[in-house]
């Protein structure tokens, strides 16, 4: 019955619709999911406040970040006919499992963080990606290592996740002969003793270690490297851009660690996002909180413009050109961010325990 009544209530002022977050809210991958959800919810909150009523409702769907759970959750999402758009899914694996369902239901998605290249090549019309894919980030990280760190010997390792391994492979091939050795570890939560990796890094004489993986493993690795007396720089991708890294390793060990991110520093965008976020959630904005905030605003702008069906909203995304706090967004035919808009920044961990914008990386 929700389907029939929604048409009546929705017609006035484009209210009464929902935007959905789809991603991990519980489980071992919840940190990233919660960052994104909170950015997303903040945007809708601000929109509703401006309207003076709960115009657009927040719908949350917890996929646990697992591909095996995602389809069932996605089906329950598409059963809700009031939902016009989805922010998510955050991970590439769950995207593979859930996006076909969204595609078949015709609900537009904007993912703030699923960076697997192949997602854009499946012919999904509802797929949109608000960040650069792995192909953009890898060369940037390599360029930073070569140009800014000027490292002569680089060790490359990854956690075998699709994300981490993909990134590490690009870095490896871009750096070429600078890579003296490489290794792979087990994934997040599957390994805690990295002494073999640490030993290899130490004895390789490398001054930089690129680790393709998430901050959880990276924090441990950084700490064990420091304990073993290795003085080089740890470099990683956006999966490591989280204060959790320094919480594990200790701030002192984390200082100087470089993370690249296909996003601009939110503080650079001016605005009040950073403070608003802190005020609402009582914690600092995390990785991709800002992109999710932007993604939600893109949808809200579209709804405001009268696109009150998933179909219309999806068509709207084809034409959008939105300047948000993290970036300016314009999507290509396949749903990728327009290449001209892709920026990759390097962030550096400092004494605050968090990463601060360092430089924008130019990959010529």
């Amino acid at each position, binding site marked *: 019955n929700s389907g029939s009544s929604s048409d009546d209530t929705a017609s006035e002022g484009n209210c009464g619709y929902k935007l959905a977050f789809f991603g991990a809210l519980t489980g071992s991958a919840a940190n990233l999911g919660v960052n994104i959800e909170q950015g997303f919810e903040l945007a809708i909150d601000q929109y509703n406040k401006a309207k003076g009523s709960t115009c657009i409702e927040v719908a949350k769907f*917890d996929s646990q970040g697992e591909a095996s759970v995602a389809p*069932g959750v996605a089906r*329950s999402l*598409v059963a809700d006919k009031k939902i016009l758009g989805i922010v998510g899914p955050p991970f590439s694996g769950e995207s*593979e499992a859930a996006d076909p369902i969204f595609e*078949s239901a015709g609900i537009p998605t904007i993912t703030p963080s699923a960076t697997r290249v192949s997602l854009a090549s499946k012919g999904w019309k509802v797929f949109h990606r608000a960040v650069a894919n792995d192909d953009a980030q890898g060369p940037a990280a390599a360029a930073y290592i070569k140009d800014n760190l000027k490292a002569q010997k680089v060790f490359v390792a990854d956690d075998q996740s*699709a994300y981490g391994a993909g990134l590490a492979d690009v870095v490896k091939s871009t750096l070429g002969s600078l890579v003296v050795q490489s290794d792979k570890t*087990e994934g997040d939560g599957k390994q805690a003793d990295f002494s073999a990796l640490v030993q290899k890094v130490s004895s390789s004489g490398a001054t930089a270690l690129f680790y393709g993986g998430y901050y959880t493993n990276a924090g441990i690795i950084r700490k064990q490297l420091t304990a073993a007396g290795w003085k080089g720089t740890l470099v990683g991708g956006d999966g490591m851009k989280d204060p959790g890294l320094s919480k594990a390793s200790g701030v002192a060990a984390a200082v100087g660690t470089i993370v690249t991110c296909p996003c601009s520093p939110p503080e650079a965008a001016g605005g009040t996002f950073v403070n608003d976020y802190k005020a609402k959630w009582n914690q600092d904005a995390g990785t991709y909180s800002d992109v999710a905030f932007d993604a939600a605003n893109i949808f809200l702008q579209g709804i405001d413009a009268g696109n009150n069906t998933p179909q219309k909203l999806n068509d709207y995304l084809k034409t959008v050109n939105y300047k948000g706090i993290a970036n300016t967004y314009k999507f290509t035919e396949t749903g990728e961010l327009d290449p001209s808009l892709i920026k990759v920044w390097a962030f550096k961990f400092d004494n605050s325990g968090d990463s601060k914008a360092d430089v924008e990386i130019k990959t010529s």
Partner: protein
Amino acid sequence: MSEKASFRSNGGVRGWYGRQPAWVQWIVIAIALVLAFLLPYAGDIPLIGPQIVTEGIDWPSALFNMSYYVLLALGLNVVVGYAGLLDLGYVGFFAVGAYGTALLTSPDSVLYADTGWKWLMAVPVALALTMVAGLILGWPTLRLRGDYLAIVTLGFAEIIRIFATSTTTLRGDRGFASIPHPPGTWNGEPIFGVTDAVPYFWLGLVVIILVILGVRNLDRSRVGRSWLAIREDEEAAEIMGVRTIKYKLWAFAIGAFIGGLGGVLFAGEQGFINSQTFVLQFSILVLAGVVMGGSGNMAGAILGGALISYIPDRLRGISLGDTDLYEYRFALFGLVIIIIMVLRPQGLIPSRRRAMELKDREKEVAPQ
């Protein structure tokens, strides 16, 4: 009077059922089957329905998930419950079934150029593969006793997972996408689409029924007797002429086959698999389900298998005060396991044999 007495001594639903004439039993079975097939519409029952169906996860999808958990429980029940071989790595067979399907059908597979089969074509090959995997696991472990077998099976499952994660052929976390769905069309639409999980559940149900029939046939035959004899006293069994090696291997192979069925269905419904799904906790959970339900009894295994999938799903969206219990679902689940096992060490629906055994054992506890 005597009727009543015998009711008490052989009480409960099972006692009642056992005393009915065959045609009543058939009607009961038929009604149960119809109800099972109607489960996706349980939400439409007034009052009770909303209490049953899940929130936050599509109810038919939850049912489908239950169906492959039930398959896994049924298969593990053959290995652990019937043959008494403690297997802590059963998820390995589930993985082999799913990967077998993916390798033969997914465009991401290295074999795609040569195979690129439809789902249905891949099924028999994938299942044959799991049976071989069962034999490969079974053969070297034949000499091992209970707890040693447990760690070795656990190790095998981990080796399979690590292998899947770390070799390029099995694509690790990248996984296999676009695995085709089962075939068939209805009014020009494919029956097995992406948005509606009901057909998948029905398919799962049909497979479960076939498996139940098959396992029941084996159980009530020389094969089941041999398994039981092996579990009770392996050497005496062999001296009585039971080919223990052969039947242990069959137990592994049949268990693997059923687990593989689960994997094949899973791959066909998801369309995407990667190495993240096949973690150790999964096996341990299924084992907990089998024992909790009542190991050695199919009804118990079915209930246990369904519960381990259903309980966490049903805990979605339930809140106590301000806290959403969903986050606590596995902690609560652990608690539920302890409570069930302490109250019913023989399982929720034990086999008659086990129930009796426990009753006897309880009387023999020395003063404490």
